[in-house]
């Protein structure tokens, strides 16, 4: 599903440049649930952003579902993001003047799905995250966990190939975190490929594979036995 070879990325900081990713080789199969771990500054978010086409790579190659991702202009990148990827952010990033349902329906709007179908699909995905009765509420009327669940429903609505989550539980307490992880595990059980960036070991243990990043290189890549989040909920 995801194939990365010899990936380099640096950021220019004034006159000196900061080498963040120093040759990453990494691949993800369909249906995997991968945790990318590392201390702050290890390059894990940069990696996720490049995977999400939110940022561009300097060197190396990136293939997503058989499509080489390179030299994308913004329009093409936007179309690929819309088609291939779903995002879940630490700070939820819901549009604050749109209701839960409208937020979930937004990626479908950019897929040019008709209004009625958008609403039906949005309600369906809200149902899946258990928030159907909150469909008409604004993000400001929802709790943190609910917001993240809306964000997950939004990411799923476009039926992406890969779901990318950047510290999805970073802003949540542990009970809510486990609820969100339970949801993510269920989505994974349904066959979806998911990548999670986290620095919390208990969250990483709920994935099926852990990739450790340190100073821009992968230091460890191991498959683990998944801890089910449902037992904590």
């Amino acid at each position, binding site marked *: 599903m995801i194939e990365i070879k010899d990936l380099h990325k640096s950021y220019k900081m004034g006159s000196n440049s900061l080498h963040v990713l120093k040759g990453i080789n990494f691949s993800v199969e369909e249906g995997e649930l991968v945790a990318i771990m590392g201390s702050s500054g290890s390059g894990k978010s940069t990696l996720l952003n490049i995977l999400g086409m939110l940022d561009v790579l300097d060197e190396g190659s990136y293939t997503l579902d058989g499509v080489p991702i390179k030299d994308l202009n913004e329009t093409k990148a936007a179309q690929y*993001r*819309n088609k291939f990827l779903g995002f879940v*952010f630490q700070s939820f*990033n819901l549009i604050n003047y749109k209701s839960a349902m409208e937020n979930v329906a937004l990626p479908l709007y950019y897929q040019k799905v008709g*209004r009625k179908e958008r609403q039906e699909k949005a309600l369906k995905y809200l149902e899946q995250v258990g928030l159907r009765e909150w469909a008409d509420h604004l993000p400001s009327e929802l709790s943190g966990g609910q917001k993240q669940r809306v964000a997950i429903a939004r990411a799923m609505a476009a039926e992406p190939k890969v779901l990318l989550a950047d510290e999805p539980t970073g802003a949540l307490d542990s009970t809510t975190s486990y609820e969100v992880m339970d949801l993510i595990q269920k989505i994974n059980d349904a066959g979806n490929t998911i990548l999670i960036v986290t620095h919390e070991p208990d969250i990483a243990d709920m994935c099926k594979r852990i990739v450790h990043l340190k100073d821009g290189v992968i230091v460890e890549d191991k498959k683990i036995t998944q801890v089910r989040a449902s037992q904590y909920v």
Partner: protein
Amino acid sequence: MFSRDNWKEIFETIQKNKLRTFLSGFTVALGILIFVVLFGMGNGLVNTFNEFFGEDATNVLYVFPGRTTVPYKGYKSNRTIEFDNSDLVDINKNFAMFVEYSTPRISRGGLVKYKNESNNYTTRAVGPAHQYAEKTIMMKGRFINEQDIKNKTKYVVIGRLVEQDLFGNNNAVGEYIDVAGSAFMVIGVFQDDGGDNEERLIYMPYTTRQLIEKNNDKIDQIIVAFKPEIGYAGAMALDLSLNRFFKEKKYISPDDQNGVFIRNVADQLKQNQQFARVLQIIVALVAFGTIIAGIIGISNIMVFVVKERTKELGIRKALGATPKSVIGSILLESVFITTISGFFGMLLGIFILNSMGEKLKDYFITNPYIDITMAISATLVLILFGAIAGYIPAKRAAEIKPIEALRDE
């Protein structure tokens, strides 16, 4: 780009961001409103101006006799100059090329009576052409004609207000009135746009006046209308040659400035027109400034709007919005708001102007108005610049990488 779905999305955004909508709408509406009202008032000023100076014919020279101040050819100074009928004939003979018509005018005051009503009015003894010089409009009956001049008829043409004063609601035509002791028949009633004083005048044949005054041939002043096609330069030349002609005929020294006076309406008109033009330029400058201020205002708001939406745009881009759709939605939203509020401001301005009418006449503003084409073009200019001003930050926002936009807290 203009599908129903896009519009729905834009309407929702507009509805849910009331402050933003209000700010940009208010700026544009206010800009256009001020522009329309200012421009209209400027036109009102010009209207007043034209009303003051534009009521009489403009191709006219008034020639007055004066009193000499320089001794010349054996005549002492301080001699009173008088015009008589031969001067009229000479003008028509010598200046036939230039002169369209000419008429004498002899003004006298006097008590006018009809039955029990009486009042003092100015009587002007004139020729038939006087009707054109003063743009006298006949309401009833007729003006004095050549036949009256020849036969020295005792006919008068009275102003609308004279009729009102003396006859009330009755018809004056055919009635006899007493003018300074002689009976005259009223043959016509006129109105004049020059104001109330102009409508309290009484006209009679100048020959009749001369007959009453011991059958002399004296004339107070001569009104000479030149052919419009000779233009301003021709009028000035005629002015000069009339001056020379009268000085020679009446034995006035060429250096004497007081022997004969010529009031040249063309010259005055030119000055007045220049003044009106300056007024119009000032008004146009102020209006232009308002539009510039409006453009700057809407530009600022668009920058603010895009800045405020940076994060939202980042989210939208992460969800698959293309740069084109980002720019498109910002522009459509701004053009929609500026169009609606621009035309609202314009209509409000026009309404205000219309409701002013004559109320500000004391401040020299009469019937303020704005040319509808002008108002619409100004509105369109503001909308266009609003769109351009919105396009630049929108394009920049669309080019920001979503990751940077999302980082923007």
